[in-house]
């Protein structure tokens, strides 16, 4: 099927809000290139489970594209039109399964040496869209907080090396009540600016006590889900003919209920009501993330990356925790053992890089010039602060506690 053949009934299997949206823009969708459209539908098919920031972005994107004149549309999409697709791709049911189409398209682009052309087309489209529909600035400056090194007694190598050129490095931080101070600061912002999915707390281990005003995801709370996923992977691996592509397709088709995700089963506190948007987010962390099922450090970093990219939070506190020591992959995916040997120093190195990625991903969001970022070596005297008023590439030996550093960051 080609886009021009689209009919409303083709979207009968879409969730209600997604169906309504694509039906409203059917005329526009009928004009878009096949190399582009399934990528858009891959996002829209999940519209019912998107964060508010994503919904707004999709609605504005569709409104803009539908407002283009014929000439403008040619200009915006001619590079996608030039991508040559195979008859097999054209015959694929990309309306029903856009994500699988995109996987096949990706393989096709690589093997036909069209990936660079597709990247160029995508980047140019993104630039045009951003120029035509500038992203809205956040209502308050964003604050990112990353806590690394949980459980590490001492560490002699330099920390925050990638972040130091961008901010001020403090070496005499009072660690007392540090985590409590940071969580309270996040909570305080959530109370003053109560925006749904606007304030997050991601923990690579067990959640510290915190306010219900924060959207929370943790490695520990998802332990039963991870175990269920690994059991399912094991079962699928034993089936004849199972390959990586087939397994990935199967994982992509899972629903939260398949892995027991939900307030009742996932280890969340009883007073938390079901949140299907967050449940889908958690499911994707584990089924689409690489390593998130087995290493807590990449779980925390990937969760932060996806939260920033998708929910665009005003506040994000990420606390890394020790990951298990590396073992052979088949052992790691066998199950979630009751007790595991931890790699404390390795986890600190992972988290130090993770902090850099958290800052980079925050800076990709609107309002980057006003955003602040604080990273702290948990329980120790080292922290680094980046903010619009903070000097770059400096070091301070002044005594300070984390409340004072937060004030400096703002």
């Amino acid at each position, binding site marked *: 099927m080609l886009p021009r053949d689209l009919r409303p009934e083709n979207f009968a299997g879409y969730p209600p809000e997604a169906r309504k949206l694509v039906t409203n823009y059917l005329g526009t969708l009928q004009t878009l290139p096949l190399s582009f459209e399934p990528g858009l539908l891959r996002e829209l098919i999940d519209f019912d489970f998107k964060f508010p920031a994503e919904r707004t972005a999709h609605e504005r994107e569709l409104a803009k594209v539908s407002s283009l004149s014929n000439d403008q549309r040619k200009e915006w999409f001619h590079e996608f039109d030039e991508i040559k697709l195979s008859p097999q791709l054209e015959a694929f049911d990309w309306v029903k399964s856009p994500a699988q189409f995109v996987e096949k398209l990706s393989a096709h682009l*690589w093997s036909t040496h069209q990936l660079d052309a597709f*990247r160029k087309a995508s980047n140019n489209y*993104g630039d045009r869209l951003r120029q035509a529909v500038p992203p809205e600035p956040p209502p308050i400056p964003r604050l990112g907080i990353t806590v690394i090194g949980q459980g590490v007694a001492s560490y002699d190598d330099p920390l925050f090396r990638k972040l130091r050129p961008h901010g001020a490095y403090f070496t005499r931080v009072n660690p007392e009540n540090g985590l409590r101070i940071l969580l309270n600061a996040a909570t305080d912002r959530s109370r003053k600016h109560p925006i749904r999915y606007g304030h997050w707390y991601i923990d690579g281990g067990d959640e510290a006590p915190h306010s219900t005003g924060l959207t929370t995801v943790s490695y520990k709370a998802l332990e039963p889900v991870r175990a269920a996923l690994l059991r399912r992977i094991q079962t699928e691996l034993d089936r004849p003919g199972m390959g990586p592509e087939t397994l990935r397709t199967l994982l992509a088709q899972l629903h939260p209920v398949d892995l027991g995700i939900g307030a009742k089963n996932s280890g969340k506190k009883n007073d938390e009501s079901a949140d299907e948007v967050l449940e889908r987010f958690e499911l994707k962390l584990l089924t689409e993330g690489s390593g998130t099922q087995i290493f807590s450090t990449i779980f925390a970093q990937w969760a932060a990356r996806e939260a920033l*990219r998708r929910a665009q939070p005003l506040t994000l506190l990420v606390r890394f925790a020790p990951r298990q020591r590396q*073992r052979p992959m088949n052992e790691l995916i066998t199950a979630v053992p009751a007790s595991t040997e931890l*790699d404390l120093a*390795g986890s600190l190195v992972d988290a130090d*890089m*993770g902090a850099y990625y958290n800052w980079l991903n925050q800076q990709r969001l609107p309002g980057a010039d006003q955003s602040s970022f604080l990273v702290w070596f948990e329980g120790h005297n080292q922290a680094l602060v980046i903010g619009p008023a903070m000097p770059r590439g400096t070091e301070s030996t002044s005594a300070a506690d984390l409340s004072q550093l937060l004030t400096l960051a703002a």
Partner: protein
Amino acid sequence: MIDASQKRSVVMSDGAGAALARTRRDFLRSAAGLTLGSTLLRSPWARAAVAASKRKVVVVTFGGGARDQETFAPEGQENIPHLMRELIPQSSFFTQVVNRGILGHYVATASLATGVYETINNFAALPPQSPTVFEYFRKDLKRPSSDAWVVAPSNGFNRIGESSHRSYGQGLGARVILPKHLLTAATSGRHDDYQHLLRDNYETPFYAPELAGSEFELQQLEMILKLSVDDFKAHAQTLSSPDELSVYIAHQLMRQVAPSLLWITMHDIDIAHAGAYSLYVEGIRRTDRLCSDVWKAIQSEPEYAGKTTMFILPDFGRDSDEDAGGNGFQHHRTGDALSRTTWMLVAGPGIREGVVVDRPMESTDLVPTLGAMFGFSPSFAQGKPVSELL
């Protein structure tokens, strides 16, 4: 479809690749005091005393993919002390080796070995479609099967030795050793003490390929490598990674068989796919040390010393931190300039020492270069011989 908030990515272009090359050259020049090479500075390869028939080549792929900031950039040089201090000063170093093919480890290694950007499924036990360097070498030069060997890290590489090409293929390729497969067989499935050496595909850890092709059989361990199963198992227990096992086997092969064309594919670095930065850096440090070990083995083995050229090159890089479509070091999926642009180090008799060449070349140039060195004709290869080495 496109996240408008994402920063504009660097699109692969000659300009981006050239910028990377300049950066690498500057890093190296400041660190190692190297000089800039050019095609005008002809290598004295032709004057080298080694006759083509006696010449040996060892190719080491620095796998699977490492970035500048963890290797040649100032902050990364601490991870490659052996390359920086021992190997680069006595090598010609090429700063801009571009891989324009598919960035999957098996298919990219197959492309290196054929000189053609292969399009085979990265996760299927398939032979390359185009003739491999081993087939050209053996058919044109009438070399026996014992003269071309591959030591491959992943069980998924078991078909790398010979292609499906109808003019070459079966019986003309290299012999392939899969050390992990060998260890599994040697331990008869009771490999609790060896699990750390049996890690396989990091890109898709759930992938378990079916083995086929001209793989090395257990019974040949003793016959060819002169290694008893017990000795092999005992030594394996002293090793810490699959690549260490590969280098151990490669060294044994050099001692006992002394092939003229030996291809060693490293893979430890690809643990990066699991997302643990510390393990990725640890893999780079180990690979750096193992490259030095291979070079030392070449210098210490009479069959190799003074007549062997060693090539070290990654199959490709990894995604840059700046590309919002990726997740930094973890993968090589964006196709950005950093993931496509790598380097090559060449050392041995007749190779200019301490020279940096930053003109662009492609991964597919390796096979034609080997052809020119050995005197075979890689007629289906797409690349061109690297003139600075000839």
